C-alpha cells in the first residue's frame, strides 16, 4: 500500500516533516501514520492535523505528496529507501542527507535540495533553488553520492563542496557552480554563471555559455583548477 498526503488547508507558516519518510510510514496503519509528529512553526502537531492521510493501492514504501508542498520543509530528510513522489512543488531541504531511495518532484523544488545527500536519486521536473546538492554552512562536504536530475534551472551554489555523485541540470544554473567541489560530476545543458571557482577536483560540463574565474587554466581545450587551490578540477565547455 502507498501512503498519500495532501494538505488539509493552505499553510500559513511552514511545516517541517523530517522523520516522515517511506521506511517510517510504510507498513503502518492509517491511525499510526496520522499520529506521527511534525513541527508546525513552534507547535508539535500530529501529521493528521495538517494533512489528509490515505492509504492507496500501490507500491510498498511509496509516499505520495499531492498538491503544493512548497511550505513543507525537510521532506525526505535522511530517507534510506523507498520512494517519494511529489505532485506539486516542494519546500526547502527536500532530500537533504538522503541515504537511499528515490524522490520525484513534479514541480519546483526550493533551496538545499539533496544537500549533503549520500545516495539515492532525486528528479525534479521544474526548477530547484540555491544550494542544490551543496553543503550546509560549516560543513566540509556537500553531496557525497547519488544523483540529482533537474529538468529546469538550478539556483546558485549548485554542488558547493560536492565530493561525489552526479548532478544534471537541463536548464541553466546560477553563480558559483561547483564552488570548492572536490569530486563528482555536474552537467549543465544550458548556461551557467560563475563556474568552477575554488574547485579542487571533480568535473563540470557546461553545454551553453558560462563564466569562468581567471583562476581556471586552459589545458587541451579544457579548464583546470582552481589553480589558487592547487585544484585538479576540470571544466568542459561548449
Amino acid at each position, binding site marked *: 500500500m502507498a501512503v498519500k498526503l495532501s494538505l488539509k488547508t493552505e499553510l500559513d507558516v511552514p511545516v517541517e516533516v523530517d522523520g516522515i519518510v517511506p521506511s517510517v510510514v510504510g507498513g503502518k496503519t492509517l491511525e499510526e501514520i496520522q499520529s506521527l509528529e511534525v513541527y508546525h512553526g513552534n507547535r508539535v502537531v500530529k501529521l493528521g492535523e495538517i494533512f489528509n492521510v490515505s492509504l492507496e493501492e500501490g507500491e510498498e514504501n511509496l509516499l505520495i505528496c499531492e498538491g503544493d508542498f512548497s511550505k513543507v520543509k525537510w521532506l525526505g530528510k535522511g530517507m534510506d529507501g523507498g520512494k517519494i513522489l511529489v505532485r506539486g512543488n516542494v519546500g526547502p531541504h527536500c532530500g537533504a542527507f538522503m541515504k537511499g531511495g528515490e524522490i520525484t518532484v513534479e514541480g519546483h523544488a526550493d533551496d538545499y535540495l539533496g544537500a549533503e545527500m549520500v545516495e539515492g536519486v532525486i528528479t525534479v521536473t521544474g526548477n530547484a533553488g540555491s544550494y542544490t546538492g551543496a553543503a550546509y*554552512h*560549516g*560543513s*566540509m562536504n556537500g553531496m557525497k553520492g547519488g544523483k540529482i536530475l533537474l529538468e529546469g534551472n538550478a539556483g546558485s551554489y549548485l554542488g558547493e563542496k560536492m565530493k561525489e555523485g552526479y548532478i544534471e541540470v537541463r536548464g541553466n544554473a546560477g553563480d558559483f557552480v561547483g564552488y570548492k567541489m572536490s569530486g563528482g560530476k555536474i552537467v549543465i545543458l544550458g548556461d551557467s554563471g560563475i563556474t568552477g571557482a575554488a574547485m579542487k577536483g571533480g568535473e563540470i560540463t557546461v553545454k551553453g555559455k558560462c563564466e569562468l574565474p581567471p583562476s581556471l587554466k586552459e589545458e587541451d581545450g579544457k579548464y583546470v583548477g582552481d589553480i589558487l587551490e592547487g585544484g585538479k578540477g576540470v571544466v568542459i565547455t561548449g
Partner: protein
Amino acid sequence: MNLIIRNGIVYDPQNGVAGEKMDIFIENGTIVENLPKDAKVIDASGKLVVAGGVDMHTHIAGGKVNTARVMRPEDVKSGIRRNPGFRAESGYTVPNSYGIGYRYARMGYTTAFEPANPPISAFHTHEELDAIPMIDKGTFVLSGNNWNVMEYTKKGDMEKLAAYMAWLLNRTKSYGIKVVNPGGIEAWAYGKNMRGLDDVVPYFEVTPADIINSLVKVNEELSLPHPVHLHCNNLGVPGNFETTLQSMKLVEGIENKDRPVLHVTHVQFNSYAGDSWKTFSSGAEEIARYVNKVDNITVDMGQPVFGSATTMTADAPAQFALHKLTKAKWSNMDVELETGAGILPFFYSPKNPVTAVQWAIGLEIGLLVNPGKVVLTTDHPNGGPFTSYPYIAAMLMSRKKREEELARVHKLVEKATSLPSIEVELTLEDVILMTRTLPARLLNLEKKGHLGVGAEGDVAIYDFNPLEADPSRDYGVVEKALSSAEVTVKGGEVIVKDGNLARQVYGKTYWVNTYTDDHWSLIGDDVINLFRYYSLEFSSYGVEEEWLKASHPVEVS
C-alpha cells in the same frame, strides 16, 4: 536553604580527609560545624562527596570565544540540549554561555576563571562571564605585550609598573596578571615573533625575560592573590621546552610563603623537544623534573583529547604559524597597544604522529609532576572541551586505561615519549587535589576547593563508592560517575539533582581591588598621554563595578 549531606564518603585533601564517611552541614551557603536548623537532608550514603571543582584556566568568555562561535557553525550545531525550564545549550568545543554554566554544574564544578582578558574589551569579557549561569567566575588581564608595561619595564620603574598594574586590574575588573608570549604579540605587528627570552621587542627594546621579571616583581610587590600566569614564548614549537625551562629559571630565588610566584600554564604546549616536526618528541620529563625540584612554580596540563578542538589564544603569531601548517580557517585580532588573538579549529587525531605525541606529553606532565603542583586542564577548548576532564582523570588514575588508549595511537608515541613506560597511577585523592584543592590555593580563594568549616557550600556528589571502586581497575565506572554529578551544590543551593539541572543561579565575579589614588598620581599622566594613540577616549576605557552582575572585589593590603 540549609543542607545536610549525610553519610557521604568524603575526600578533602586540604583538611586531610581521604575516604571518611562524614556528614557535611551547610548553613546560609557556608559549611558549618553543627547541624543547621530546618535543613534539607541529602542522602549520600556510599557516594563520593568532594568540594565543587575549580577550573583556573578555561576560555569561556570574551571576544575570541565569540569569534570562535561565529566561525564554527559546525561546532555550534553539535551538543544541542533543550533543557525545558532552562535555556537551550549547544556546541562541543565552544558552547553558548548557558551551555558552559550548565556543563560545569553537571560535572560538579562551581568555579571557573577565564585566563585572557584584553583590557580594551574587558567589558565584553564580563558581559559573557555575566551570561554564564551556575558558577563563580573571574578573569586574568593580558599584560605581557602592553605598551605601558613594556615602557616601565624598559625604564626599570617597578613602582610605576606596580601602580599601573593595580590600576589595570581595577579598570578591567580582573583577578590576576596574565602574560602571553611576552613581546611576541607586539612583534607580530611586524609579522615577527619572539624566539628566545633575550630577543628584543621592536621599538620597545625590552626582552621577554625583562617583561616576565618585572611582572613577577610587581605581582609580589602588590601581594596579588594569584601568581603571574605565564603562557611561555615559542608555544607549539619543537624544542620549546628549553625556553620554558629558561622562563621558569627566571624566578629562581623569588619566594612567597603563601603561594608559588609563577604559574606556567598549559605546559604541555610548551614541553616539546626535537628541532622540527620530523624530530618532534617530548620534553616533559625535563619540565617535570624542574617543577618537582623547586617550590615556587606550578603548572597546569593543557591536556589534548582526541577529537575536535578550537584553538584560541592571545598568542596571535603562534596561531598564524598553525594556520600556515594546517591551512585551517583562521581568525586574528590585533588589539591596539595591548595584545592580540588568533583562533582556528584543530583536530587531535590518535593516528596523527604529532597530535598523538601531544596527547602523550600532556599525560606525562600529569603523571610526572607532583600532584600538588599540577592542575588538571585542557586549556579549554585548545586541547579539547572541559567536559573531557573525567576522561583525563581516569587516564591519570589507571594504567590499564592508558594502555587501551596507547593501543590506538600512532606508534611515534612509543619512541618520542616515556608515557608507555610510566607506571604511576594517581589516586582519587590526587585527582581531587588537582581539580579542587590546588587550583583554589593557586587562586587564593580560601573558601573554595575544600569542605572545612567556613568554606563555601560548593559540593559535588558523585554516584560511586570510592571505598569499593578502584579507579585503576574500575576506571570506566569512575569516569562515568565523574562526568555527571548526582548532586551539585553551589553556595548551599542544589543546582544539579539526579544529574539534571535543578535550579539556575548566577555566581559572583572575583576581581582584585588593590588600586588607590596614590597609584594614579604616579602613572596618571603617562596613561593619559598614551590615550592619544588609543582609538577611544580615556573615559570610555574600563569597567565600572556596578556594571557587573555580582561583583566580588577581593581587597589586598
